């Protein structure tokens, strides 16, 4: 289990890591569209008609990123967001069951390394990152099953973005992050249904950056 305590400890260590250099910390705050492009291995279980499937939807949320610059070009970054609620709708042979057959909040921190192109002081600085995403699903709700369990997911995350400097400290940013989020889901009600959902999320973010 990754508890908030271990995440907080990690952040604390990151904050004190390295020597203090001018403006080697960046905080970003913004709005993000969490989109999914889900694929499943179908739904299996007693009483499930062939061709039953689900598809997950999109959600908008707020994100916070903290980056510690290790060099003028390389930083280590932690990104978290207010967990968006992702809804799933029934598709295929059970499409008649409609929207929101289950939903869950996705708690999905990403830790990674970011490479900044250009030089400090440039007006536009594109960046690219590679990291690890850990996703835990919480507050799972379903009108079709009394008990839904979802497996935690650990996978890669890749990011591309650009920063626009308004001044020495403030800037704007836009980024796109693709992640590998896969979860085995077991829904128990009258019967027991199983599926593995590959969410294939892409997160589009936009916001402000502050250096200190």
């Amino acid at each position, binding site marked *: 289990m*990754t508890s908030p305590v271990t995440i907080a400890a990690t952040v604390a260590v990151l904050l004190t890591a390295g020597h203090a250099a001018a403006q080697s910390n960046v905080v970003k705050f913004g709005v993000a569209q969490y989109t999914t492009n889900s694929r499943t291995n179908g739904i299996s279980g007693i009483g499930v008609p062939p061709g039953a499937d689900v598809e997950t939807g999109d959600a908008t949320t707020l994100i916070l990123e903290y980056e510690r610059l290790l060099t003028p070009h390389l930083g280590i970054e932690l990104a978290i967001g207010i967990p968006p609620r992702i809804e799933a709708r029934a598709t295929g042979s059970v499409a008649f069951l409609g929207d929101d057959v289950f939903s869950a909040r996705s708690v999905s921190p990403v830790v990674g390394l970011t490479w900044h192109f250009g030089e400090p002081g440039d007006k536009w600085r594109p960046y690219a990152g590679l990291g690890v995403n850990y996703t835990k699903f919480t507050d799972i709700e379903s009108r079709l099953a009394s008990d839904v369990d979802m497996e*935690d997911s*650990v996978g890669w995350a890749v990011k591309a973005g650009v920063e626009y400097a308004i001044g020495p400290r403030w800037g704007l940013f836009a980024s796109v992050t693709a992640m590998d989020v896969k979860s085995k889901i077991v829904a128990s009600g009258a019967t027991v249904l199983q599926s593995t959902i590959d969410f294939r999320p892409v997160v589009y973010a936009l916001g402000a950056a502050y250096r200190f």
Partner: protein
Amino acid sequence: MTRFRQALILLTVSLLAACGGSDPHVPGSGSPVGAPTTPGSFTAVVSFGDSLSDVGTYAPATSLAGNGTAPYFGGKFTTNGAAGTVWVENVAASLGLLATPAEVGFAGSSVACPAAANPALAGTCTAYGQGGARITDPNGIGHATGALTVPVASQIANHLTRFGSFRDSDLVLIWGGNNDVFVKFEEFAAAAAQIQAEATAGLLTADQANNALYAAQTEAQAAMKQAALELAALVRTGVLDNGGKYVAVVNLPDSGDTPFGQSLPASARQVLSDLSAVFNLWLAEGLTGQPVGWIDARALFKSLLADPAGAGFGNATVPACDAEKIDALTGGQVTDGSSLFCNATVGAPYYGLRAGADPSTWLYADGVHPSTGGHAAIGNAFATQLAAFGWL
């Protein structure tokens, strides 16, 4: 950079910790644990269940004189006759034991342990299974027309009342739930017919009809879950907690494979098949980790039906009993061909088999019950399982 490395290590450790132990629990995927593995010294076969385990509860309903007195021409849900034993009797006989009905009667009058008329046999009335019986609901199939249908819950309670507890020398065999399947399937079928009529009349859209069918099916499945978990609880608190040591629980065969199941439209047959599977799933879940022997009758029947000829059955689809003969024999009172009234004694005036039917090589007696040969095969298969547990 040392601190940075520390940070990376901490991060890696916390992420690895996150990977562990998150696989969701899948109900029904566990197994019983801790049943005996050494042979028992059995002095009684104690069986609980329904018509499949009924060794003659309703014999008086088949009185030749028509007044409840012997002789009887039927009484078991199989091809009745001198050789017409059911699996419980077969397993008991293989152990050199006798299992007689715990209660015999019909239409409001019944006698507990009639075998006790011979004091030497007083301990043999441990076959509690009754045709129509459900797990906890006393209103079993046929109850309204006179069948006792004492549910499995009461069967176990009655045994405890008589004997106080289970003994190490009891071979306890529990096989119930089929009638819960049939009752809930009939309710589903009635609801489905109504939904389809409304859809045909244009009162429901296709989506509305599908949702209503889904809801009806889910309701039936939920009833299976409840019945199966109730049976599992009865096994735990009624049998194991009261001294049951050699306790075998049998799951349900696929009702969709019976002649009755085969007679249904494919979609309805699937619903029926799923109901017995859902029952089995929750029964397995309720008995996970419990010290019982688990007999997978669904698998055993599937295996037999995959190659009936290999198991000695030339006919595994047509009931051996002739519904028209039984109808005539009972003066039109039994029209469904129930094997309770089916006798296989060649030449007897109450002979009830179809032309050409052989009770030892035709698997089914009626739409859902096995013939004498079917019960012999079941008894053998279950005894093989009991031997595999190390109990025999």
